């Protein structure tokens, strides 16, 4: 089982009467893209938040590279190699694109408490930030204010920040949201190359992207894991068709 990077064991989460997660067990293996799909309100975001550490499960545990991190804070999980992107961009809007990318580089290298020397003159940090911006195609706008970016560019910056962390795994919450066909296609191609660097747990509504990218798919409905399997298996699964795909297509 050494190729399992992330694992959730019987996660349960209730909000009052709503059972948002029922005994969820999923895992993410090295080299794969594991897509998490399900209708709105299925509990995908809740699960992502529990994995990233912004919500804690009522019962169950989360294992990161063999280590139980259920009680770890978001900060500590990030330091242990978990890189998360947000569904709604969470960026420092008043800062430049480069400064946002630098933030990731500083976090990853533990330099965020250096009081001396300009951040923009630290070559190791700059290299790391610029590399990430280049990979997502934002190097041209590195000096622009983040608030001036288009929606699509902000989504790219989200991913660039995750790249600066050089993480052990990515947890991406609807990276395609609002991108349009062309943008989704480009991002799909990019994520396809990313899986060799680190596996991706991908929450996504764009089914074309999911079917193109995913090595495995897990289907979540009303807080319950309906099925996990390859694309072909999920397409063939009767209960999934009924609960989800059928209503969609």
């Amino acid at each position, binding site marked *: 089982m050494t190729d399992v990077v992330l694992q959730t064991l019987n996660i349960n989460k209730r909000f009052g009467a709503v059972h948002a997660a029922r005994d969820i067990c999923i895992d993410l293996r090295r080299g794969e893209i594991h897509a998490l799909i399900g209708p709105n309100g299925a509990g995908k975001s809740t699960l992502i938040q529990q994995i990233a550490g*912004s919500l804690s499960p009522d019962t169950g545990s989360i294992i990161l590279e063999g280590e139980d991190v259920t009680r770890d*804070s978001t900060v500590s999980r990030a330091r242990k190699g978990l890189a998360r992107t947000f569904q709604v961009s969470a960026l420092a809007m*008043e*800062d430049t694109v480069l400064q*946002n990318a*630098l933030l990731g580089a*500083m976090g990853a290298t533990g*330099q965020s408490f250096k009081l*001396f020397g300009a*951040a923009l003159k630290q070559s190791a940090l700059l290299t790391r930030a610029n590399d990430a911006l280049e990979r997502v195609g934002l190097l041209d706008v590195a000096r622009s204010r983040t608030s001036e970016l288009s929606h699509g560019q902000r989504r790219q910056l989200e991913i660039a920040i995750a790249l600066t962390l050089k993480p052990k795994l990515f947890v991406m919450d609807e990276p395609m949201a609002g991108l349009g066909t062309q943008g989704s296609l480009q991002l799909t191609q990019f994520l396809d190359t990313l899986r060799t660097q680190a596996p991706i747990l991908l929450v996504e509504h764009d089914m074309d992207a999911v079917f193109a990218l995913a090595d495995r798919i897990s289907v979540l409905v009303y807080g319950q894991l309906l099925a996990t399997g390859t694309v072909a298996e999920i397409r063939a699964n009767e209960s999934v068709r009924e609960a989800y795909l059928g209503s969609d297509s």
Partner: protein
Amino acid sequence: MNRELIFDVMLMLGLVLVPIWAHFADEPFIITLATRAAIFAIAGVGLNLALGQGGLVSLGHATFFGLGGYAMGILASHAQSYTAITDWPVLIEGTKSMPIIWLVAVLVSGFAALLIGALSLRTTGVYFIMITLAFGQMFYYFAVSWSAYGGDDGLSIYIRNDFPGLNTLDPIQFFLIVFTCLLGVLGFASMLIRSPFGLSLNAARQSPERVETVGINPYHLRLTVFVISGMITGLAGALFADLNRFISPSMFSWQTSGEIMVFIILGGVARRSGPIVGAVVFIALEHFLGGLSDYWHIYLGALLLLIVLFARGGIIGLLLGQGRVHD
């Protein structure tokens, strides 16, 4: 050169040239006013780090201003009466040396900021405002009831403290000491804002979740800046006490906290020279309006209200346009 830099340089030149002119024109009162403005500016630069960069609306910075003042008062009063502050567990004596007094003031304020910050930063928003205000009031009442150092009446220090090689009783020399401190503090603050720490702190103000997801703890960033901010305001308190040769609980009062904040708002939040413009304008208003009417606070209040409601960038915002400045 950008306009803000030109403005800042002109401002600092003005702040140093006016007292020098006053020195030769034999107008010591103007030098004293400029010294007051420079000291308030130091306190404002301190608060501006927490407020402008960290987004921490502290209404308790009088605590650090007061602690700096009392550090000076306690050390100097023991030196002037030739008594030890304590002889157990080790002998600690007073001193009249400014550098030592400053060091003590900065350390004491920093320690208090660490304790207060560790508690208050567990909360955010309105809670934080109320709690910092309340802790400030706690120190105020403590000073009022601490009869060993004058209690309610405060404590006079008869002779200004010493600085090696200078005659501190000469107004212009004391002003230059204060002005140098202001320059040093400003330089430190600008460096901090550009440093990796400053960048992280700024991001934590705008998007704390983001900062957490890259593995940086926003609480630690905020606590660090709160301590640094408290230390700088503490230094201002020690200088203020030395200017007046007097300390009293009013240094700890909520009005003092409010006024330090007013300097920043008058000038412009998160602008490099915001606190300096604010302090200078405040002192000028106090001097001119105070000369016209005993009730000048009404006009100050009205002006402040107008600025908050209609000119949110403060005076610098009006002159140079809106916006935080990064390069």
